[in-house]
């Protein structure tokens, strides 16, 4: 008789990490465990377990002295005791003392593994800080906990989706553009970063996807810092349409003599005192280019500089239904 070698071809999409896999690493035992636990004292009689096991429909009870877990007594221990006719034995003489436990702050994935490996139905949960019994975890608790969490996440996603997709739909116009304007003061390092922070918060409130917001925020920050470091001030304007976010940074001097050179990573004309503050690393324009889908930089020495970047919202905001026709 030959045995087929067990070769497992990966299921489609096996390399993708599912939401559930992500959650079992992220969630902790104490987020799903049952805390209204039934316990018995080691000095209880085995006969007293009868009602407990039947009425609560449970298959095992932690044995607790004070707040400390000293053992676990299961329905099997009970049946064995019953068949031996020794129901007047004390719980402490029939319980199992080597109890496998979990700490309350362990990730769920560990509980899942232990359930798999040992085939137990439940683990008592111990507080790592106090050593006291704080709960019991079963496979059912894990499933319920995960479902609940997925439901919450889904709900949040729905709200988020609603905001992003309906913000523009609720506006009735042939063409919609929202404009946000910010003044940037030159050489004022204490206020620097206010524009990009403010724009970020505004976009977040509109329900723009976080990934897009981060790209816009980084590009805007670098543009803002360039105005603060090198000029006497300027203005940043953000235009938001259903299709894209366009940010324009304009200042009135001193201008960039060699744009090609300025675009090289690490090239900087910042004075030493500015560099000592951690600015002027020559990465600003590089960062902007990395974040933007399109970038345009125009400058005239002595007159000023105009930078325009755009980040596409394609598909992120539901407004392009006509594309499918």
């Amino acid at each position, binding site marked *: 008789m030959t045995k087929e070698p067990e070769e497992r071809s990966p299921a489609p999409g096996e390399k993708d990490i599912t939401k559930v896999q992500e959650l079992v690493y992220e969630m902790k035992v104490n987020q799903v465990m049952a805390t209204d636990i039934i316990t018995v004292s080691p000095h209880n009689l085995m006969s007293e377990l009868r009602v407990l096991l039947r009425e609560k429909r449970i298959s095992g009870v932690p044995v607790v002295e004070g707040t400390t877990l000293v053992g676990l007594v299961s329905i099997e221990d009970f049946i064995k005791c019953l068949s031996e006719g020794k129901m007047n034995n004390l719980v402490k003489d029939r319980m199992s003392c080597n109890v496998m436990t979990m700490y309350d702050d362990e990730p769920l994935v560990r509980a899942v593994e232990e359930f798999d490996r040992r085939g137990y139905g439940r683990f008592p949960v111990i507080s790592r800080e106090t050593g006291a019994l704080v709960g019991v975890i079963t496979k059912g608790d894990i499933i319920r906990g995960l479902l609940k969490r997925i439901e919450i996440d889904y709900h949040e996603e729905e709200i988020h989706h609603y905001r992003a997709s309906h913000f523009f739909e609720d506006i009735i116009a042939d063409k919609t553009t929202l404009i946000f304007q910010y003044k940037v003061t030159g050489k004022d390092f204490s206020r620097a*970063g206010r524009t990009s922070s403010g724009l970020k918060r505004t976009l977040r409130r509109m329900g723009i996807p976080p990934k897009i917001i981060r790209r816009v925020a980084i590009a805007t*920050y670098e543009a803002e810092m360039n105005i603060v470091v090198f000029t006497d001030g300027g203005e940043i304007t953000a235009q938001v349409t259903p299709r894209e976010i366009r940010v324009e940074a304009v200042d009135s001097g001193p201008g960039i003599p060699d744009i090609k050179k300025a675009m090289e990573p690490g090239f900087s004309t910042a004075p030493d005192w500015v560099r000592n503050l*951690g600015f002027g690393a020559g990465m600003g324009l*590089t960062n902007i280019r990395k974040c933007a889908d399109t970038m345009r930089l125009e400058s005239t020495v002595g007159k000023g500089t105009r930078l325009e970047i755009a980040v596409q919202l394609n598909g992120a905001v539901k407004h392009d239904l006509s594309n499918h026709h």
Partner: protein
Amino acid sequence: MILATIIEKLGLEVKNAGGDLTNEVTGVYVSDLLSDVMANSKEGQLWVTLQVHPNIVAVATLKDLAGIILVNGREPERETLARAEEEKIPLMTTRLPAFQLAGKLYGLIGEC
């Protein structure tokens, strides 16, 4: 590991209220160049730096960092503190230089 645990284990001094110390720290980034932090740090990371001016709070806010640790016993400027408070970015200090602090952080949370 959450920020509060790291603060406790390394004896960091928390300088402002309002920040969320229960945030999970996903890693650490060490740099004093703001553009570099802007480009290469990741959401949820702790930032180790010797810069103390208010703009570090803007960078941390924009990149959704878990907090800022100032090394070498450096103290934040008053405006920095005020902005950290306003933006709810945890600001901490340590007497250790960056290298030693980074070593200890690596020991705690490893290669994140």
